[in-house]
């Protein structure tokens, strides 16, 4: 009785946590409440449910804490998405392992128990291997472009079909070996599922896998007949699904389109064009352009964060403001590697929240903007997304900086953006390119503006 009450407390905490995390004001409390609920649940489970192996469990928990906390503390803000992917993956793996262990413990499994076990093992495995692949992509340990294996689709279908077949066999034969094979099929399915997803869409895959892990946990709740696992897992599964849809909407794409590869045919099309001319400028040119403008919009992208140039950007902006230039930041919903990622990165550099503007704040007045300064962004200002139905990112809302009076494009090289798509804006006569490391260039710009 008391145990169920404690689990109820924990479940309520989780609901309040998700609610809190949805509002900027209470987000941090929300997270604390969630952590508190987790503590209640874990202590309850330990005190009430542990018959033996208590010490070993404590050691395993201590090891987990020793790995998890330093990892979460030391990760750079730019690398947060792949860290979340890893944490999600290990959660999925844990769910699969729990179901496997319980399967070998139970003597006379019923139909629903078997169904729940099969689902937990399968979804947990998919979530684990899929998350590992997203990690490798975001960490750029492998190519960020969609990977299309020869017969990749057939392989994925084969893995899917054998998963279903193995699941059915496990349910009829109750054979442990087959359950292991199912786990392996799930691992293969997870890899094949994420490989074709293009770099810019990987965060959406992470969000979806997050929802998957939630469902695996919910299914494991049926395996263990534990209401808390069902409630918490379902909450994450449901909210994760909604969140995935919201993210896809922010990119102007449907989920099916993202997952099953519109990137397929067109990703190569941009290559093989003849060299075209671009206009490269010097730091001094750009400083004059900025220093005598009335109205500047800075569009930062992931390149800014990678170069650790947030602080340099903020200093340049304050300097411009002292000169009476009105400056705002245009933050694309998917700037960075995850929706909202850029807001986190700029907040870290003490950029005031009021200066961060969204698409709908910037675009209507874009024609009166004197200079649009694009720093380390690319895809989010690519006019192809608006004008070229053949472009792989067509339909994604962008900042219409090509309609500003002039554009300064700070780039490290002519390399295309994360999505691997060429950007017409680079060849626009209004565009001045400033090549170099973003931090370096911004620091030089700051000095040049000061000297004006």
């Amino acid at each position, binding site marked *: 009785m008391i145990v169920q009450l404690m689990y109820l407390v924990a479940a309520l905490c989780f609901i309040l946590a998700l609610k809190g995390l949805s509002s900027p004001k209470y987000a941090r409390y929300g997270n604390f409440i969630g952590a508190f609920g987790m503590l209640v649940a874990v202590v309850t489970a330990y005190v009430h449910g542990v018959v033996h192996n208590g010490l070993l469990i404590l050691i395993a928990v201590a090891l987990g804490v020793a790995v998890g906390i330093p990892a979460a503390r030391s990760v750079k803000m730019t690398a947060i998405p792949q860290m*979340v992917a890893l944490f999600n993956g290990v959660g999925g793996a844990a769910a699969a392992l729990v179901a496997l262990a319980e399967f070998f413990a139970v003597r006379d499994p019923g139909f629903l128990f078997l169904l729940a076990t099969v689902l937990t093992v399968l979804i947990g495995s998919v979530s684990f291997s899929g998350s590992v692949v997203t990690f490798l992509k975001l960490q750029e340990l492998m190519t960020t472009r969609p990977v299309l294996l020869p017969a990749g689709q057939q392989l994925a279908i084969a893995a899917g079909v054998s998963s279903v077949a193995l699941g059915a066999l496990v349910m009829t034969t109750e054979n442990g070996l087959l359950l292991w094979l199912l786990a392996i099929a799930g691992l293969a399915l997870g890899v094949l599922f994420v490989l074709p997803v293009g770099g810019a869409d990987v965060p959406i895959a992470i969000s979806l896998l997050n929802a998957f892990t939630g469902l695996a946990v919910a299914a494991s709740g049926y395996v263990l007949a534990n209401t808390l696992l069902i409630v918490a897992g379902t909450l994450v599964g449901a909210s994760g699904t909604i969140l995935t849809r919201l993210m896809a909407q922010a990119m102007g794409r449907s989920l099916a389109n993202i997952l099953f590869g519109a990137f397929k045919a067109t990703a190569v099309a941009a290559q093989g064009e003849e060299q075209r001319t671009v206009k490269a400028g010097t730091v001094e040119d750009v400083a004059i352009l900025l220093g005598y403008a009335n109205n500047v919009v800075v569009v930062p992208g992931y390149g800014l964060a990678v170069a650790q140039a947030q602080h340099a950007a903020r200093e340049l902006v304050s300097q411009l403001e002292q000169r009476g230039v009105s400056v705002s930041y245009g933050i694309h919903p998917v700037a960075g590697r995850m929706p909202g990622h850029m807001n986190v990165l700029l907040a870290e550099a003490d950029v005031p929240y009021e200066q961060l503007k969204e698409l709908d704040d910037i675009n209507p007045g874009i024609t009166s903007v004197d200079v649009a300064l694009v720093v380390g962004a690319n895809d989010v200002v690519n006019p192809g997304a608006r004008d070229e139905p053949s472009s792989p990112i067509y339909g994604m809302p962008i900042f219409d900086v090509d309609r500003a009076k002039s554009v300064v494009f700070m780039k490290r090289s002519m390399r295309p953006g994360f999505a691997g798509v060429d950007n017409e804006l680079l060849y626009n006569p209004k565009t001045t390119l400033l090549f170099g490391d973003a931090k370096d260039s911004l620091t030089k710009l700051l000095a040049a503006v000061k000297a004006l």
Partner: protein
Amino acid sequence: MIDLLTIFVLAVFVGFEVVSKVSTILHTPLMSGANAIHGVILVGAILITGSAESTLELVLGLLAVFLATVNVVGGFVVTDRMLEMFRK
């Protein structure tokens, strides 16, 4: 069994409801927070290990406890770090 199903269905609706309106700024922290919450599988891992009778169960259980702990503590800490940035 129908009880568990009832709980499941109600939880689906609560899950949909709580995040139906959320600004893009909070997408990343919210995903990360939800990620920490599914670390509740730690409860399952502890229960299973605490009653494990064979070596296989024990090994699987302990591994699950370890991984789930990483999920939980890492998830909450990383979410807090993100949200810390918004404090102003």
